[in-house]
């Protein structure tokens, strides 16, 4: 990764911005994950209770319907069920638990009284009433279990996603960004060192050149004096 990064100051600033954002995101996601887990534990307790009630209600309803089928006959039980006029209805809304949209199921016309079940009272028995009542209770439990367990599953999916995001930030993205940051910083420092060295070298070279130039100049000056002296000495004897 680091090899693909351009070691520029601009890139470093961008990476620093990303690190800051990722660290903030990591903290927030960690808090969200912990909150979701706490909410999930509450829902889990509720779901366990609801499951227990559902199993009890199912067993009770089966016992009642079995008794009704045995004592009244299948035909009578089927007939009483056929007379039902108002079938149960459910409506679903949604509520938000820490950003997770979970269903809220509202049921109506599930529990009925004797006059609402559709069958005539004079020709039926308490066994049919008790079986109907037990199944109404069971249906209520199923609806509640559907609501709680769907919420639980959605929370679980969200916890998993959040956990993956936290881990991705913690173990992948942030380490890479830190690595890139280090890489660029090192590169930049190296470049700085090279620059200083280069400048030093240039300066040295320049100084050397200047020195040489000065030397050369000095050398040139001393040679001229000697010639002049020689020229002066030669003219005098000729004047004799």
């Amino acid at each position, binding site marked *: 990764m680091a090899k693909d990064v351009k070691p520029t100051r601009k890139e470093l600033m961008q990476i620093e911005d990303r690190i800051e954002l990722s660290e903030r995101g990591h903290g927030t996601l960690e808090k969200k994950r912990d909150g979701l887990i706490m909410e999930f534990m509450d829902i889990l307790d509720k779901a366990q209770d609801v499951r227990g009630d559902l199993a009890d209600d199912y067993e009770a309803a089966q016992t009642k319907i079995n008794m009704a089928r045995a004592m009244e006959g299948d035909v009578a039980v089927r007939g009483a069920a056929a007379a039902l006029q108002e079938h149960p209805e459910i409506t679903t809304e949604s509520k938000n638990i820490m950003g997770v949209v979970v269903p809220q199921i509202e049921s109506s016309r599930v529990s009925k009284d004797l006059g609402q079940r559709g069958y005539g009272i*004079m020709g039926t028995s308490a066994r049919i009433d008790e079986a109907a009542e037990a199944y109404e209770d069971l249906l209520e439990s199923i609806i509640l279990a559907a609501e709680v367990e769907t919420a639980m599953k959605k929370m679980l999916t969200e916890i998993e996603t959040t956990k993956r995001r936290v881990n991705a930030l913690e173990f992948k993205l942030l380490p890479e960004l830190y690595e890139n940051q280090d890489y660029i910083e090192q590169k930049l420092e190296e470049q700085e060192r090279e620059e200083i060295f280069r400048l030093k070298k240039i300066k040295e070279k320049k100084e050397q050149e200047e020195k040489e130039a000065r030397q050369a100049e000095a050398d040139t000056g001393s040679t001229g004096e000697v010639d002049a002296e020689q020229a002066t000495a030669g003219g005098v004897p000729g004047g004799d």
Partner: protein
Amino acid sequence: MSSSASNPEYVNARVRSRRNALFSDEDYRKLIRMGPSEIARFMEEHEYEEEINRLGARFSGVDLIEYSLNRNLAKHFDDLLEWADGRVYDQIARYLRKFDVWNVKTIIRGIYTDTPSEEIGTDLIRAGELPDRTVDRLLEVETIEDVIEVLEGTLFYEPLDSAYEHYEETGALVPLENALDRAFYENLLGDLGRPTEGPEAMYVEFLQAEIDFRNARNALRLARSGADLDPAEFYIEGGVLFDRSELSRLVSDYDALVDHIADDPRYGDRLDAALARLREADSLIAFEHAVDAALLEYSDRLSSVYPVSVSAVFSYILAKEREVENIRAIARGREVGLSEEEIEEELVIL
């Protein structure tokens, strides 16, 4: 209704042999230990051979048993009406009309739920007074209004016709079903008067018990359910346990209602144990069970006190009904996994 002279002796003589074919306690003890297919085999080897063989290709398991029991019951009760003439016919028919009520209710429920007429026909028990051709015509019609039209001339026509408006308003079958049941119960005693001695007195006492127990069951169910229903609507005339205003008053006070039944001189002792359980537990089932046992006891007394009257025929009708219910209970009980003890507890055997 037959207009010839009454012939209770003849009917009784025919019934006696049928009574001997009923399953004994020993048979029940064997049946309780059997699975559904063994029960079907046992039935085939005894009284129910024809029905099991006829229905064996269409049904299996407990359905075969239940439908065979219903067919056999219908055959026997149809024979009773065939043999009876005059007053004895009338006395038998007024009780067997409960099967007409069952059939009309089943047909109405079938039409209400768009069930094919073949399926509805399977659930019928043709043991009532309505002739087969009327029942077949009822199966052919497509609306509840047409069912009422077909029943014109029977005792069910007027109550159904009156209840139909209420049905149209509410869309619920309750008014029609209640009208049918009320027509049946209120015609049970009809013009019988209140004889104080002889076989007729016992017969009337039995029918009164049937009405009283039905009123008691309904009152207890209404009291327990807390439904916003007028108890007077479900009151059946003819019994001695409640009058209309008494019933309306007692439905709002469950304990007073139970006390009222317990204090009754005619039924208090018979239902004592069941009422005690009713006070302790929330379930009405034990009470209904006790009521069924009390009715069977009545019927047994009917046969022994006046053996050549209609009372003995009645005793047979109840015993046969009980046999059908017991075998069905055993078979269904075994099918759904009830233990032998649980099934035994539910059986009503004298």
